[in-house]
């Protein structure tokens, strides 16, 4: 905190959507050279507030001041020109274009006659990519990058202009630890240059690791600002969700039953090879690894979405060939996919219909769909997962990111699967719901289901898993039991270091 003139101020911002008062008189002050966290439950209004600041949305009322100058953010470009850079929660990239074009999207350097100055573009981008220590070039097509690398492209945008303030809306949701380190370096760098950084995340450890102050939103209302150094997780949670949260690690190992799913020597092209593991009923198996480790691909193969080259899949000891998701579902496998917008939801459909989509064939009343049964399922999981929506008729696309994720989870939980595979289940989910989901996963296991959890968050994997499979470059390096695993050995394993001596 180098100066007392705030980098920006938001005053009494109100924003309503049909049926929703998303922001109700929110004020926020960000100082130059500080990292200011914005926290709140899913749907509290964080992204909406940032969209107002970034010129994407116009507020119903309230003022925005940049360096004490009242301004109107007419458009994203306008905001950018006033020094506010917005790194979005959802990827916002043109896949067919090159990395360089994406980084400088909207501001390609020009030569005469509106020509693009390719040399300058590539040069400037290369410099930024250097800083981010990524393994791709400015000319790479963005569509060819993994999700995490795409996120890095998005982050690279923060470094293109001389910003007064940079907004990161859940930038780490799809990053693994290696990129996170780079990201934190970038943020530290921005901070050192006197830029005000607004950082949205649901991950406590990140918040405490690198922010200076924390502002809290709840149900669209401002709940106060705390100095990070002077607060605790408990106090934060209390402010965010209005109650205390029991975060103690309560692993109640259920009776582990027979092997529900066994995979032997499964290989699929360049994606992964010779993957073997087993999950028992009553057990949670964690999958941990770096970006590109191939965990998602293994899950997709089990769900009938990919054709393996070699290997066997055994369900309840019986070898099966799973040719399509239909077959997988019939055999009691559920997959919560990692990309909720692309793979998990029909955004234009309402909440209820999304939730019951995989079982719509089974919910019959005569020739028709039994709407009553559907609504019952919806109500049950809305309460169970605390999904915030005005009603089942709301389009899923209008929900906040976290609530969308909950719909996807509910959709597959309600199938009562034998084997549940969840890929990044709590990406973008607030602490309260996160622990709720963790408990649900444990409960499912306790009820005799086999659960596979793929996660890039070490605390999560450690917290929910009975055993952990560590993958690196498409290979299983090691399988840990929850007793023997340590953070250190796990990090070693996912970096490809085979620790022969591990206990």
């Amino acid at each position, binding site marked *: 905190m180098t100066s007392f003139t705030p980098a920006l101020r938001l005053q009494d911002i109100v924003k309503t959507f049909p049926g929703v008062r998303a922001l109700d008189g929110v004020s926020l002050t960000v100082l130059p050279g500080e990292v200011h966290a914005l926290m709140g439950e899913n749907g509290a209004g964080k992204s909406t507030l940032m969209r107002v600041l970034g010129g994407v949305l116009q507020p119903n009322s309230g003022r925005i001041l940049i360096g004490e100058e009242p301004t109107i953010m007419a458009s994203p470009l306008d905001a950018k020109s006033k020094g506010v850079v917005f790194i979005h929660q959802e990827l916002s990239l043109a896949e067919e274009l090159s990395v360089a074009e994406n980084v400088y999207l909207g501001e390609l350097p020009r030569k005469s006659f509106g020509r693009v100055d390719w040399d300058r573009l590539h040069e400037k981008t290369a410099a930024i990519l250097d800083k981010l220590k990524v393994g791709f070039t400015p000319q790479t097509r963005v569509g060819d990058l993994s999700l995490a690398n795409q996120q890095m492209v998005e982050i690279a945008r923060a470094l293109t202009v001389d910003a007064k303030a940079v907004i990161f809306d859940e930038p780490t949701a799809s990053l693994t630890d290696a990129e996170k380190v780079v990201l934190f370096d970038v943020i530290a760098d921005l901070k050192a240059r006197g830029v005000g950084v607004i950082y949205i995340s649901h991950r406590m450890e990140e918040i405490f690791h690198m922010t200076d102050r924390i502002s809290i939103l709840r149900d669209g209302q401002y709940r106060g600002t705390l100095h990070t150094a002077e607060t605790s997780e408990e106090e934060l949670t209390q402010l965010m969700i209005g109650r205390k949260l029991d975060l103690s690690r309560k692993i109640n190992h259920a009776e582990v039953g027979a092997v529900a799913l066994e995979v032997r020597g499964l290989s699929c092209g360049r994606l992964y090879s010779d993957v073997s593991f087993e999950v028992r009923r009553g057990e949670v198996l964690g999958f941990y690894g770096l970006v590109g480790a191939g965990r998602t691909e293994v899950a997709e193969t089990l*769900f009938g979405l990919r054709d393996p080259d070699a290997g066997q899949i055994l369900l309840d000891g019986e070898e099966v060939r799973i040719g399509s998701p239909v077959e997988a579902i019939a055999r009691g496998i559920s*997959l919560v996919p990692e990309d909720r917008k692309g793979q998990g939801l029909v955004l*234009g459909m309402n909440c209820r219909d999304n939730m019951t989509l995989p079982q719509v064939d089974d919910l019959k009343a005569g020739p*028709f769909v039994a709407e009553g049964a559907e609504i019952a399922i919806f109500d049950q999981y809305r309460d169970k997962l605390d999904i915030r929506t005005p009603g089942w008729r709301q389009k899923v696309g209008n929900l906040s990111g976290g609530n969308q994720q909950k719909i996807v989870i509910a959709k597959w939980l309600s199938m009562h699967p034998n084997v549940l595979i969840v890929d990044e289940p709590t990406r973008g989910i607030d602490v309260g719901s996160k622990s709720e989901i963790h408990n649900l996963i444990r409960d499912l296991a306790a009820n005799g289901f086999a659960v596979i959890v793929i996660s890039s968050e070490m605390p999560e994997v450690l917290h929910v898993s009975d055993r952990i499979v560590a993958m690196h470059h498409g290979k299983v390096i090691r399988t840990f039991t929850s007793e023997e695993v340590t953070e250190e050995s796990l990090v070693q394993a996912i970096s490809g270091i085979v620790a022969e001596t591990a206990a």
Partner: protein
Amino acid sequence: MAEMTKRDVGQFLARQGILVAFVIFIIGFTLANQRFLAVDNVLGVIRSSAILGVMALGVTFVVISGNLDLSVGSMMSFSTIVVLDLHDKIGPSLAIPAMFAMTMCLGALIGFLVGYLKLNSLIVTLGMLSAIHGLTLTYSGGKNMDIADKEGTWFSLFGQGSALGIPVPILMFALLAALLSLLLAKTAFGRKVYAVGGNGVAATFSGIRRARVVFLTYVISSFCVACAGLLQASRSMGSQNTVGQGLELEVLAAVILGGASLLGGSGTVFKTVIGVLILGFIQNGLLLVGLEFYVQYVVTWVIIILAVWLDIAANRGRLWSPIA
């Protein structure tokens, strides 16, 4: 409170932009020519819209599932010619099922190409438009097809008969609309059509056989085309090879006018029916007022854009697009 209600009414009106436009047009034409709303005329318009309408019902399914069908016009010519030809050869009671089978085979072929082979529907159906036209010409040798004994057959029932004072085409249109509306809105299949159109990948991830759903939408569409061909053949008891030419775009216009999004995932059978009626009444109304046929083109242009605009403006809550 009063203000709230007023806004609700406003919202409702805006949301039902299509209906509002419809009512305004009816009033306008009626003022211009009192005969417009005469029972004969109304029934007449609905009857002659029925053929287009029946096709539009099927295309609604295709469009909601995120595809297009430009082949319906040429397919309708095909079924008309086939049923007329077979009528004299094997009698109406065999000719009708035979024609349905042949037409639905074409629909199944398109469904296979678009659904299972995942070829782009715009191009596939454009290709089929041309190919089916060629097929029809080959079948008929390019000649007009006429039923020899027009008086001595019950075949005229579908196009010209009436029950309870209502012409059969209208009954058939209404019945099909009701059935298909239930199918789309109330059954698991209907739900899947919306899901596939809304987000095909997510549908696959939800265990929906996307290819099969798409395939079935084309089969439904071809079934509707066959019904339209039957109505058409029975109405005029004879036909040219090009009887359905150009209808594909009118059908599409009706479906869009009803508010189905071409991106898939939205639209309803009821709205399509309204879209069909609007087109029918505009055509008829302008004829009654005595305007040149091409004025109708311009009017249709304005109406399509206004109707769709109103519709989306209501959805986003503001008139002008937020695009910078």
